């Protein structure tokens, strides 16, 4: 036992930490050295991403849309994309580098990742195609919806009001069915037994 601990585990090697700790903070800390622009990114995107996300990051079928949807967040059907919704560019770098392409994650180089991120920004009309995105400037890039988030305010907005003894009788005048379920989900007949 060493200084009140159990003495279990062993010291992590620097190479091990470097291999697994690839997260990027909103201020850009954690970014690997590298760079790329949308011009380079278009090619990588076409090869690695477009089959699901579309040539212009507009999404194919049910796959995520990465571009557009600006100022739709208060609409009936908001379109939440990297451009319209994501508050930090660091997240795009981090997520793409770590978890994309879907099915072959972890195979992109830092330069390819910078180029893809630049292409997504370009698809969102946020930069010109020769804008060079790098570990130097990514952390300073201001996203469209950077001020669009507030910390959970249910305690003030809801809990104060809803922590009260509820009504038990004569709570409403009358009740009417206002909506019935739309989708009848196919389920096997209840009871696998032939006796049911």
């Amino acid at each position, binding site marked *: 036992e060493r200084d009140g601990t159990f003495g279990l585990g062993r010291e992590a090697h620097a190479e091990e930490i470097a291999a697994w700790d690839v997260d990027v903070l909103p201020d850009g800390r954690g970014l690997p050295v590298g760079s790329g622009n949308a011009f380079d990114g278009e090619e990588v995107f076409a090869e690695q991403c477009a089959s699901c996300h579309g040539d212009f990051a507009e999404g194919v079928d049910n796959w995520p849309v990465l571009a557009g949807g600006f100022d739709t967040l208060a609409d009936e059907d908001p379109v939440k994309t990297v451009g319209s919704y994501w508050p930090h560019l660091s997240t795009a770098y981090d997520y793409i580098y770590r978890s994309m392409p879907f099915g072959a994650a972890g195979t992109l180089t830092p330069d390819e990742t910078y180029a893809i991120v630049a292409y997504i920004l370009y698809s969102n009309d946020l930069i010109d195609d020769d804008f060079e995105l790098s570990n130097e400037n990514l952390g300073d890039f201001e996203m469209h919806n950077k001020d669009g988030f507030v910390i959970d305010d249910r305690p003030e907005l809801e809990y104060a009001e809803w922590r009260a003894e509820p009504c038990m009788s004569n709570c409403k005048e009358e009740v009417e069915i206002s909506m*019935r379920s739309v989708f009848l989900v196919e389920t096997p007949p209840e009871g696998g037994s032939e006796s049911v």
Partner: protein
Amino acid sequence: MDENMKTSRRAFLRGSAAVAAGSVAGAASASGPDPLITELQDWASYTGAGVDETPYGMPIEFESHVVRRNVEWLTASPISSINFTPIHALDGTITPQGCAFERHHSGAIELRKEDYRLMINGLVDRPLVFTYEDLERFPRENHVYFCECAANTGMEWAGAQLNGAQFTHGMIHNMEYTGIPLRTLLQEAGADISSDKWVYVEGADASSNGRSIPMEKALDDCLVAFKANGEALRMEHGYPVRLVVPGWEGNMWVKWLRRIEIVDRAVESREETSKYTDVYEDGVARKWTWVMDAKSVITSPSPQMPIKHGKGPLVISGLAWSGHGQITRVDVSKDGGITWETARLGKQGDTKALTRFYLDMDWDGAPMLLQSRAMDDTGYVQPTKDQLREKRGENAVYHNNCIQTWYVNEQGIAENVEVS
């Protein structure tokens, strides 16, 4: 017994069960004697399965409907998708692991204990690597908690959509976990545990599912768990090690946990910016909506559990839970919320765990609008969907803990509805 005999006897058993079926419903009122009693049944004469037949058993075939189900059109790929616990058919509080829901972002991975490594790094005195064997040497604890997906009931924001408690409320399971308090591992690494620090956790799978947890929660009740309901975690639930974050949205319960990093601010990863943020009506989104508020649902009767026995005694059964603490009371309404009566708890609620409730009634065959309303030990009362929508609009996606209504008609058929 040889294979042929087994087969033919099973075929015979199935045949006799089918014959018996006709007499089951009328048995109680039948004037004549019940052949299931008066005739020697096969199972009372021949022998059953030997103890060597099933080293690890599955439910009997007659329960084959008690399974996970998915809804194909909900997601683009079954690899990053959800399925649903058959809560309509279960009772008590513990979810059998084999039908407990799954939510993956890059599929359920196969990770051997021998290949498992857990790293702690960042603002620590000693960045450490643990093997699975190391983890089994730390003092451990047992706790029962619910894990509810943040998106549970999320399809129902705009109206009544899916017809069944499994689909509207089945992104949940409740297990007894064995694990190490997260605080023990933080201490082992000499982590900076000051209150402005964050704990970033990520999985070994391709999606990584990284999330930031404030230090206060990490030190409070989070568990690094390796057993559930007495046995190793199932592959699809994070084998061999997952994080348990009591009362908080299921996304934070990182599976196949491989790294814990102490950071001086939230990482604001994809799963806490693009996803698991709640857009309210004004277009502003709430982030870090971690706690799952008090919620309940009547599991029977429900669309998949119609009343088949006619008038008379009827058991209304359901589940209640709260991420804030214990369920102290559940009220049930049969008339869509005009009048309420307090149900009976199966047993005293555990903190941040599923609690079973019952209301035993005498059904006169009249249609009902069944609702349940949970209360927790903070005094919070589960809201109606209209109350929630008034605060949040219809696009929050996550955290829909509204009161559910089932319309039960004269035939005992139940349907998912909304009421005024």
